[in-house]
């Protein structure tokens, strides 16, 4: 698994990814079949690889019964069905599924196989068994193709709501004989970016437990939380243009009713210095020049030219992805997780200080200053000592 940022596709971002790779942002791409027909996926995969990226496909069996016309173009999608029906899959069908999986990953020339898996839920041994069955099937294919096999460990909210349920689930997950982990952690849906210290700490500890297996961890759907991923020792992070990538509600998988979503809301500018967003240009114009310059400092090629020219939403997305990839690339060069934890705390502390300065002039919308100090509190007193146990 290549260290660094992986582009997490899934929301019409295939071309955005090409642009990012052309700017050396990201080392890999995780293709999503949900919004990309199979033939196009094969073509994009080739293009990504030509740009030097590794490619994976996340078949997104999180909600296995979900389907749409794009998904239907994948042969493996014929096995999408309810959890109970999938659980009863016959040996012959499982074998056929393995054949289709082999064809798909071969044609996409992926660097590893992400085993399909349903979102883990608390008190559901049937899901544990089903995922073990799907993993075994994918592992056979991986062995045959001489590819690493990554177990999918997407922990749903019923699992992540307590330490005990998280621990129990991870005990089951880590019994799989995987070469790496494709890890996702779902938070409460109340917030765009999680701010509850206890939950953030739990996510980091869960990631660390996977890291201590000695296998690489791809923190999937991490987005802005990727700052914390390298602090718990992740090898790679999944980054996309959604800030709340980590949500796995069934509704997430439905096509939006209105094209574009979000109506005419102004774009958000992601500031690495704030480690958060600020409304562009409305909020920025209300901030004194020296502070504004601090907020806007960026090496992103997608930064806005100035505050008077409208900034398209997709460019804002590109800017967000570039900033996150840039930071991930820096952290990926540092191997001791403890150093990355200290680095993350430093970035977050600077962000807290900057937010405090801004608060003298303006209260930012979107609750964008709500989480940085809690992330520090999650990392600082609790997390660093854990590394001494490794």
């Amino acid at each position, binding site marked *: 698994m290549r260290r660094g940022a992986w582009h997490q596709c899934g929301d019409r971002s295939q071309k955005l990814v090409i642009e990012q790779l052309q700017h050396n942002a990201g080392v890999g791409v995780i293709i999503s079949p949900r919004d990309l027909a199979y033939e196009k996926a094969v073509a994009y995969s080739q293009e990504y690889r030509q740009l030097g990226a590794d490619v994976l496909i996340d078949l997104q069996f999180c909600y296995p019964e979900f389907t749409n016309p794009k998904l239907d173009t994948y042969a493996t999608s014929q096995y999408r069905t309810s959890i109970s029906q999938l659980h009863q899959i016959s040996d012959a069908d499982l074998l056929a599924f393995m054949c289709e999986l082999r064809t798909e990953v071969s044609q996409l020339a992926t660097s590893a196989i992400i085993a399909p898996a349903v979102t883990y839920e608390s008190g559901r041994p049937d899901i544990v068994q089903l995922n073990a069955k799907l993993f075994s099937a994918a592992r056979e294919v991986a062995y045959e193709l001489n590819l690493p096999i990554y177990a999918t460990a997407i922990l749903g909210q019923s699992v992540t709501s307590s330490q005990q349920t998280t621990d129990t689930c991870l*005990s*089951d997950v*880590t019994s799989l004989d995987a070469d790496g982990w494709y890890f996702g952690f779902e938070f409460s849906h109340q917030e765009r970016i999680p701010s509850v210290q206890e939950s953030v700490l739990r996510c980091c500890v869960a990631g660390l437990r996977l890291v201590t297996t000695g296998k690489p961890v791809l923190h999937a759907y991490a987005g802005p939380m990727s700052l914390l991923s390298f602090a718990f020792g992740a090898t790679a992070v999944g980054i996309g243009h959604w800030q709340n990538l980590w949500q796995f509600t069934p509704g997430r998988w439905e096509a939006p009713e209105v094209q574009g979503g979000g109506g005419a809301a102004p774009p958000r500018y992601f500031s690495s210095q704030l480690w958060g967003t600020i409304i562009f240009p409305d909020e920025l114009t209300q901030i004194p020049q020296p502070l504004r310059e601090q907020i806007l400092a960026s090496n992103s090629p997608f930064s806005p030219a100035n505050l008077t020219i409208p900034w398209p939403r997709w460019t804002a997305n590109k800017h967000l992805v570039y900033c996150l990839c840039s930071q991930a690339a820096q952290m990926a060069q540092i191997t001791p997780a403890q150093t990355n934890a200290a680095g993350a705390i430093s970035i977050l502390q600077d962000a807290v200080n900057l937010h405090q300065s801004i608060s003298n002039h303006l209260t930012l919308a979107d609750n964008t200053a709500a989480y940085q100090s809690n992330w520090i509190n999650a990392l600082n007193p609790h997390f660093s000592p854990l590394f001494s*146990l490794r």
Partner: protein
Amino acid sequence: MPYIVLLDQAKAAFPQYDFINALTPSEQKAAFHVLDQVGQHLCLKIIAPHYDIDRLHREIAALQSLDHPNIAKLKEYTYSSKPGQLKYFIVEEFVEGEDLSTRLGAPWPRPEIARLFGELCQGLEAARKLRIVHRDLKPSNIRVKPDGTPVIIDFGVARHLDLPDITDTGQGAAIGTPLYFSPEQFMGTKRDIDHRTDLFAVGILLYQALVAQHPFVEPGVTLHDSICFSNGYQTNASFISIPNTWRLLINKLLAKDRGSRPHSAAQVAAILQRIGGD
């Protein structure tokens, strides 16, 4: 109840072997130290007839693929169709040497412990790669050859995780020897058993090698409660006096939750190699 086959009865059923002596039988098998026609020392195990032979066949097939210097080799598995005869038997490499139990009376030098347990873990790793869990790792199931090589024997209650269980254990996981049970063997279901179950037993054995006491035999506490709930061993003065890295490793191996234990025997072997004689 051990499965008993009289020596004379065995000799009559297996005339191709010279019988040296009877070995300790288990519930599943009667065992004999024998010589074959070329003078090779072997261990003949006659399997009790009440086991599900189809499942046994599948698990034996998995065991046959295990070829590792730290695991006793399965030489032959045969069943006879002659009516009225002792039907099923397996022939294993006979491992010269002594049981690990003979070495656990007093603490040994740590470099020697690191070497022996490192090799033991390499054997377990080979089994793990084939998804086989021993489930009954204990001193008498580890032979130490005269050259010091540890060899794991008696995969009699081993489980291949991808196959149905060899024995009819219902929902429970309680198979093996309670003194070396893991919490999940006491309390869990078969689903909870995986290679980390063996690592818990390794933790107990390692503790015994370092401290010369069993970590969970505590006065006034049942073995069940001690293994499942107590970390009283951590306050043992002899344990406290060993180097921190060793204590840390043992604490990880003896974690109640298998998810908190090392992920693989290979990981433990690597740690042992690193800490060596610390």
